[in-house]
């Protein structure tokens, strides 16, 4: 079981658009909500109302700053299992509890065989696996295996919970093994990236980098047709710009 299946088949995964993600954490919350009643249920919540609430989450949203000064960007960064093609979390598992499905590439944990040694979490560069202290087993993103193949819910909802809930449509789900799938085309168009390619684990999930900032946008578009805005932007106060300049000076005192 812990041997990896051959490459080349279906590779279900996520494409996450870092340009449009607004960092609302809805994907993380809906993930927790669905999965605490799903395949890996329940997900522990220790000390939920105390000073040190902690528990298992399959999806966590980090916020990074990249670049310096006016060129810097704030980038919200949802992080979950990348369902790697060469998943080290699978091959290190001594019991075969950790496995990668041949039919769709999803990496799962058989909780009945897991001894809770945590070695898979050490092997994962992405911090995607979290240990359930109540059940004594490792847990991880299942790519909502209990939604995507679930014939009891409407077809439109057969996507991972994080994808269905994203208000910014920053998350996309599909087969990254098929070069003509919507997600593969999106990755090709936007230059989707692997995280930590140097680790060599061939992650399936891809991240679309933020689009280049339009640094001079203040002098284009709507702004260009409003002279007082243009003047204020260039520091040359004229007309209404004088008033705004005065307000700025007063407020700056």
């Amino acid at each position, binding site marked *: 079981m812990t041997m990896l299946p051959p490459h080349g088949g279906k590779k279900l995964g996520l494409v996450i658009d870092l340009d449009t993600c607004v960092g609302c954490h809805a994907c993380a919350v809906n993930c927790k909500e669905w999965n605490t009643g799903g395949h890996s249920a329940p997900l522990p919540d220790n000390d939920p109302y105390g000073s040190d609430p902690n528990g298992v989450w399959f999806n966590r949203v980090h916020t990074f700053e990249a670049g310096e000064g006016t060129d810097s*960007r704030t980038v919200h960064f949802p992080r979950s299992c990348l369902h790697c093609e060469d998943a080290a979390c699978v091959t290190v598992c001594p019991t075969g509890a950790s496995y990668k499905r041949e039919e769709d590439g999803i990496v799962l944990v058989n909780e009945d065989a897991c001894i809770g040694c*945590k*070695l898979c979490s050490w092997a994962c560069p992405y911090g995607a696996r*979290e240990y359930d202290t109540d059940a*004594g087993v490792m847990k991880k993103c299942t790519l909502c295996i209990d939604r995507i193949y679930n014939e009891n819910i409407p077809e439109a909802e057969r996507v991972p919970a994080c994808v269905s809930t994203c208000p910014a449509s920053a998350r996309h789900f599909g087969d990254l093994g098929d070069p003509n799938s919507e997600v593969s085309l999106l990755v090709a168009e936007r230059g989707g990236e692997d995280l930590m390619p140097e680790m060599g684990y061939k992650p399936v999930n891809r991240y679309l980098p933020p689009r280049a900032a339009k640094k001079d946008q203040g002098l284009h578009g709507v702004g260009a047709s409003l002279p007082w805005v243009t003047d204020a932007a260039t520091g040359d106060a004229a007309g209404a710009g004088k008033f705004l300049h005065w307000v700025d000076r007063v407020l700056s005192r």
Partner: protein
Amino acid sequence: MHPAYSVIFFTTASGAGYGLIALMALFGVLGGVKLDPWFGAVGLGLGALMVTGGLLSSTAHLGHPERAWRAYSQWKSSWLSREGVLATATYVPLVLTAWGWIVEGSLTGPFSVFAVVLALFCFLTVHATGMIYATLRTISAWHNRRTVPVYLAFALLTGSLWLHALAQMFGHQTPMLAAVVAIGLLLVMFLKRSYWRLIDTTPSPSTPESATGLGALGKVRLLDPPAMTETFIQREMGFSIARKHSQKLRRIAFLSYCAIPFALTLLTSEAGPWIAIPGTLAAAISVSIGVVIERWLFFAEAKHVSMLYYGADSA
């Protein structure tokens, strides 16, 4: 990395145990020590006790120790599984060698084969322990060519010092034993120093930029972590308490596993039994404490790449 006491105890005790058993077997088969049944029983028995105690303690950090038997199944891919298989298999030549030494009073014929196989299995088991760590690309302090030799050298050194102390107690000390101790000391001194130099000067290939894929925008730093409190990943991989004392701890460890055993062995092993026995025993205890500190540092100094997502600027 969070240093789990059970894992530190396991690697330390089993390393010493396998070292002791392997040296007993080799010295026995080569005629380097007298095949005194009591000496054999105590030596192989102490080794077996260290190994078994270590193996049992290693199951203490498991979420489901009662399922530990399942770890025998994945030897094709997992070094942890291989370690379990090898450790268990070692009991077979151990019992056969002990039989030859204690009951038959001879390690010739088939028993010589059992003894050599026993030493080989001890070597392979410690090698597998080292490989569990050395194959983790996520931890650059472990994923290098020094990790496995260091584990093997410490097993040799601790085993040789315990064997030396036992040989003194039973009056079977030989210059060859002291020579093996000296080889162990030299190996450990050289290998551990070069290990520390390596991890101090080799940065991980991973950076916050490669972890996020945002390098094109410039330097990447964490603005907001995903949760207000520590996650499992931070607790398990982000342990850094001992790191700020690492230089001091390295010196204490070196004193304890190298300098003190060297001085004690040199000064006491040729003296009369009333000095030699406590002296060599103190050397064995000192090296064991030193290895515990060294193993603690092995974990505490190791940085995991996943911490790049939690604000680490290097891994």
